[in-house]
């Protein structure tokens, strides 16, 4: 069973308590339609398990297949610099069909980010590097497509529909 490397830490984008009984990690691509389909499912899972679950998102942009995936990932990191990673994450997935550079700027504006700083960060090689580091951690963790999920550090190979994911998570919490 493939293991998550490196384990979840404060370096990650964590929604919820990092010490929750279940930590669900997704390696995702903002332009991948399967990740788009998984987005409301993960939300549903978060609502079901509330404080018993923390959700972590790591970037795995398939840049050759999805021309805006990397830009979107960097934009979310630029938003993170202003404390709005999750808001950006969710806006991008909700507007996935119109993904493009202008749209990313419009989303940043709608989040009332400081646009001057956002534009600078959007070009910052350090943020590109962060996205690449996520990608590399995905390779060594055995990511084999997007979305790839890890439950408490172990790769989840089941389907990502609500019932399957919820069953896998529920079985840990109720154990």
């Amino acid at each position, binding site marked *: 069973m*493939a293991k998550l490397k490196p384990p979840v830490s404060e370096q990650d984008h964590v929604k919820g308590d990092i010490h929750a009984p279940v930590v669900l990690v997704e390696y995702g*691509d903002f332009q*991948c*339609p*399967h990740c788009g389909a998984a987005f409301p499912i993960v939300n549903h899972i978060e609502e079901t398990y509330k404080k018993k679950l923390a959700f972590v998102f790591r970037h795995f942009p*398939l*840049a*050759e*297949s*999805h021309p805006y995936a990397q830009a979107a990932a960097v934009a979310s990191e630029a938003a993170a610099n202003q404390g709005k990673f999750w808001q950006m994450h969710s806006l991008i997935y909700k507007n996935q069909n119109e993904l493009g550079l202008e749209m990313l700027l419009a989303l940043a504006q709608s989040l009332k980010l400081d646009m001057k700083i956002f534009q600078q960060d959007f070009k910052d090689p350090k943020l590109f590097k962060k996205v690449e580091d996520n*990608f*590399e951690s995905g*390779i*060594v*963790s*055995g*990511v*084999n*497509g*997007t979305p790839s999920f890890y439950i408490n550090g172990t790769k989840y*190979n089941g389907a990502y529909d609500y019932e399957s994911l919820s069953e896998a998570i529920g079985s840990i919490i109720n154990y």
Partner: protein
Amino acid sequence: MLGINIAAPDFELNATPDQKFSLSELRGKNVILTFYPADWSPVCGDQMSLYNEMLHYFSKYNAEILGISVDGKWCHAAFRDARKLHFTLLADFEPKGAVAKQYGVYNDKEGRCDRALFVIDAEGIIRWSYLSPTGINPGADGILDALEMISSKK
């Protein structure tokens, strides 16, 4: 399936409609030989597209990746083009699956290659191999571990 620490059998196959390619051309480099069932699998992030995103991680280990299936050279050309693949796909087409059979990864029932990975070192010796369960894309963690092992033993 061929095991490790033996010489990888050499072969010559079409890499493009008008170009032949033999494994021995890559002597001096590590080679990732990936047998896969067929071009045009329907998912995004299918195995070949996934590896396509990882080429610069492989090149850090002086490694070149080769995809190989029983699809014909024209099929491969169209597939490479459509998925913007930047590495060689080899057509194990005539006689069908001959190389896959040599490596012990031909599936007679389905008439195609199994999903199997071989990592071959710069001297042409198989150093790692893996047969993936049907339908499961094995990712690249095993490949990177193998390349890491090869480079650490130098």
